């Protein structure tokens, strides 16, 4: 038995279903959502875990079928072919996202068993029922968004996702998180409306909503008709609002920082990726070839802004969960560097971008859950008061650090592959400015991670332990962090999944090249020394135990941060800018300006 048949045998019966296999990831979470309401009760968490395991098997089967078959899986629902009916399709990108979602949601499901346990004697709690139902709702929305081939079905998927994700933010019921949830809801609904408007214009022009048919009909036209220019601009902007790309990030930090840790992990790791994935679908599958340099540069510039701005603001945060949330704002930025780089280096850019999706999903879920364990154990998440937490929660702090290494981009992490592939694309296309942004982003990321770890590692425990986390919780967080860190060690052939259903994309070659020299001394040293310098600088600014004696001094210092006094003024200006950008009228203005700018950029090139 050779290796490929060994890989296939457990799933043979599932894989033989062909396209019908796609119905399982589409319907399993929906059935879970409905049954959860019917069953409710004390053992809901266990039952949901069972469904999550089944979902993982289904996602593995889809990925195996797509990779070994070498072609996308296609299914016509109800036997009706488009344009009349609705098609499901899993190409390589869908398969990867299905799989990473199944893995992360399963990890979160294991982690959440303890946080959403129903106390003895109670038949059911509000938080338990709401969390498990909405987790299923989010999963259903994600899978529908990854598989849907019809612009309206994708809209319904977005709705399912939004209505499930928003109440998760306010699960603890505090006024502050309710306000964050409402902000998220209103901005996300604005995004939905813009998306729907675009879908209507597509239908009005071509009488179909099917992605493949639209691509066919648009490719035949000499230039983009004006309604399609408007549709592309509206849908892109609407989805950017849902993805929280800078400067439309007004809702993300309070929502992702205010949600319970298990929910934050899902929101940051997966939910924002679904709307990003639809932007990819629009530009690479519906309108291939319509992405002109100007549009691509605008999207890239927003991404670069997100990387620099998000990381700088993250440095200024006094609370761990807010720091991680701003880190998400920054990490979303890398995804949008795909657009300017894809023009002449599609293999490198798309593979790098997908690796960023996967590694950020694992790393960020691990970080939010680690932060949740720290906050649950210490009773707070103030970074300055994390002193000595390594002794209380060694595994958790280790997991946080390992996940952080992936964000910085140390080999062999997914982050390293992303950085290397995108840098190769930068070299290939001569757009050196994106390379600079990525370097700066990596160093800033290193700075705030050393800041957090420095506090966690140094000094005696500075507070009381209010609760002990479960061992399973710590281990699952560690497992996710390791998944992000060791992503680059997977056999390169597996990365060919990225290119299935997409002509001329050689992902495994790109990954092999990137990994080939990864552990050479000069390469390793060249990558690590700037990070070490940043690390030493940050550690030099840490308050040492003897300097901590004066409590009032410590209190005064909580408003300062790693950037130190010389940069305090700059930091204050940036924070004020962030507060300004996150005001409703300003965010609304940004949205309008972006819509018009994108429409103008798309029109000039068509």
């Amino acid at each position, binding site marked *: 038995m050779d290796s490929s048949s060994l890989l296939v045998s457990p799933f043979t019966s599932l894989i033989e279903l062909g396209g019908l296999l796609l119905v399982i990831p589409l319907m399993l979470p929906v059935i879970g959502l*409905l049954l959860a309401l*019917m069953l409710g009760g004390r053992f809901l968490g266990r039952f949901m875990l069972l469904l999550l395991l089944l979902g993982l098997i289904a996602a593995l089967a889809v990925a195996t079928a797509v990779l070994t078959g070498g072609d996308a899986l296609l299914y016509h*629902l109800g036997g009706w072919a488009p344009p009349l009916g*609705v098609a499901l399709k899993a190409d390589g990108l869908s398969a990867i996202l299905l799989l990473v979602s199944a893995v992360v949601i399963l990890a979160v499901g294991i982690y959440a068993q303890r946080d959403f346990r129903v106390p003895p004697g109670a*038949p059911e709690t509000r938080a338990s029922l709401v969390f498990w139902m909405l987790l299923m709702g989010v999963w*259903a929305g994600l899978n529908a968004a990854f598989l849907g081939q019809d612009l309206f079905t994708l809209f*319904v998927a977005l709705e399912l996702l939004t*209505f499930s994700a*928003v109440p998760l933010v306010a699960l603890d019921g505090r006024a502050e998180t309710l306000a964050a949830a409402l902000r998220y809801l209103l901005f996300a609904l604005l995004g939905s409306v813009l998306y729907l408007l675009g879908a209507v214009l597509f239908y009005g*022009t071509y009488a179909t909503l099917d992605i493949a048919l639209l691509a066919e009909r648009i490719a035949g036209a000499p230039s983009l008709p004006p309604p399609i220019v408007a549709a592309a601009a509206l849908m892109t902007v609407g989805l950017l609002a849902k993805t929280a790309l800078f400067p439309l990030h007004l809702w993300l930090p309070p929502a992702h920082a205010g949600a319970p840790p298990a929910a934050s992990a899902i929101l940051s790791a997966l939910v924002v990726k679904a709307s990003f994935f639809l932007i990819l679908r629009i530009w690479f599958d519906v309108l291939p070839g319509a992405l002109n340099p100007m549009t691509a540069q605008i999207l890239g510039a927003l991404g670069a802004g997100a990387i620099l701005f998000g990381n700088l603001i993250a440095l200024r945060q006094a609370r761990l969960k807010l720091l991680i949330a701003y880190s998400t704002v920054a990490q979303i930025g890398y995804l949008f560097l795909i657009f300017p780089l894809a023009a002449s280096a599609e293999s490198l850019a798309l593979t790098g971008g997908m690796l960023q999706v996967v590694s950020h999903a694992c790393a960020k879920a691990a970080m939010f859950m680690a932060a949740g364990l720290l906050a649950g154990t210490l009773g707070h998440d103030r970074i300055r008061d994390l002193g000595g937490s390594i002794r209380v929660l060694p595994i958790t702090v280790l997991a946080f650090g390992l996940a952080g290494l992936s964000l910085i981009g140390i080999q062999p992490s997914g982050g390293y592959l992303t950085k290397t592939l995108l840098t190769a694309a930068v070299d290939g296309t001569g757009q050196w400015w994106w390379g600079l942004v990525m370097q700066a982003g990596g160093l800033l990321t290193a700075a705030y991670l050393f800041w957090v770890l420095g506090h966690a590692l140094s000094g005696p425990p500075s507070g009381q332990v209010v609760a002990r986390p479960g061992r399973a919780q710590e281990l699952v967080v560690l497992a996710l962090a390791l998944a992000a860190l060791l992503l680059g060690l997977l056999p390169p052939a597996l990365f060919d999944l990225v290119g299935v259903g997409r002509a001329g994309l050689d992902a495994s070659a790109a990954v092999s090249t990137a990994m080939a020299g990864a552990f050479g001394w000069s390469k390793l040293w060249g990558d690590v020394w700037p990070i070490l310098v940043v690390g030493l600088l940050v550690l030099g600014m840490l308050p040492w135990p003897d300097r901590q004696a004066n409590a009032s001094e410590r209190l005064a210092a909580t408003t300062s941060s790693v950037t130190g006094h010389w940069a305090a003024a700059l930091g204050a200006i940036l924070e004020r800018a962030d507060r300004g950008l996150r005001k409703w009228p300003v965010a609304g203005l940004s949205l309008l300006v972006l819509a018009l700018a994108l429409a103008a950029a798309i029109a000039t090139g068509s």
Partner: protein
Amino acid sequence: MTSALVVDAALALLVLGLALWVISTRAAYSAVVGFVAYGLLMAIVWVRLAAVDVAMTEAALGTGLTGLLLLGAAARLAPYEAAEVSSRPGRGLRMLIGLLCAAIALGLAAVVLMLPDPAPTLALLVAENLPPTGVGNPVTGVLLAHRAIDTLLESVVLIPALIGVWSVAADPAWGGRPGSLPRPQSGSALTLLAQVLPPFGILIGIHLVWNGADDPGGKFQGATVLAAMWILVLIAGLREPPAVRDQRLRVLLVIGALVFIGIGVAGIWLADAFLAYPEGYAKPLILAIEAVLTLSIALTLGLLLAGPPANDHRSGGRS
């Protein structure tokens, strides 16, 4: 023809004027009233465009149910409105936003005028493929056969929405009865209305669903009418809203979507595709799905209005 043109022009101007008024008016309450009137006018516009199904949905859901929800919200927000208005952005920023919105609206209007004429459509293809579904109303054929997955997922979306409403309950109140409906006043005309109207309303609702197979109408419109009758009875205090822990209620909420999925899965064996109907049985199956979905949707819509479970439920109500 000219008189129709005059009516249409007047209608268009009225809709535009009302839309502007809704945006510019300060008080939330009057804006909501304006919005309800706007929705009713839009329903007439849809009738003029020969889209009777859309008109009914607009009137029932877009105007009736949404209007009720908005009126409730406006009433609750009234005490905070002055503070909100005083903290609005400066004149310059508002002018700029207004100008950009106007630019986008004009751009959209221009783009709509540039759409191909005659509009490309799937209507012919739908008509050709209607016979296998056994239904006469093409809208129902599209919603329950050709694009059944969208209808299924749309009916599922209502459940997270309801859970979202329930999720803002206080923990001790979990499991209890929803408590956002106004307190009933005994001996009012409302009681009489709630006793007389529902039998007719229920008949109309069922008629809409039954008729939807071959004529304009369908489960969403019918369910809204049924939900309205239920809410009337609840507001009049003739019945208490059910507790959210009620097992029967929970089954009824999800039974519609579950039956839909069940029939869809059976289609894999009986009709060679998920969500396909076996030949000759399409119409009865579609009617069955519509019937149970109507029940689930009506309950969900009613409960959306009834709000999250509350401890201090109106004790004055008769049970």
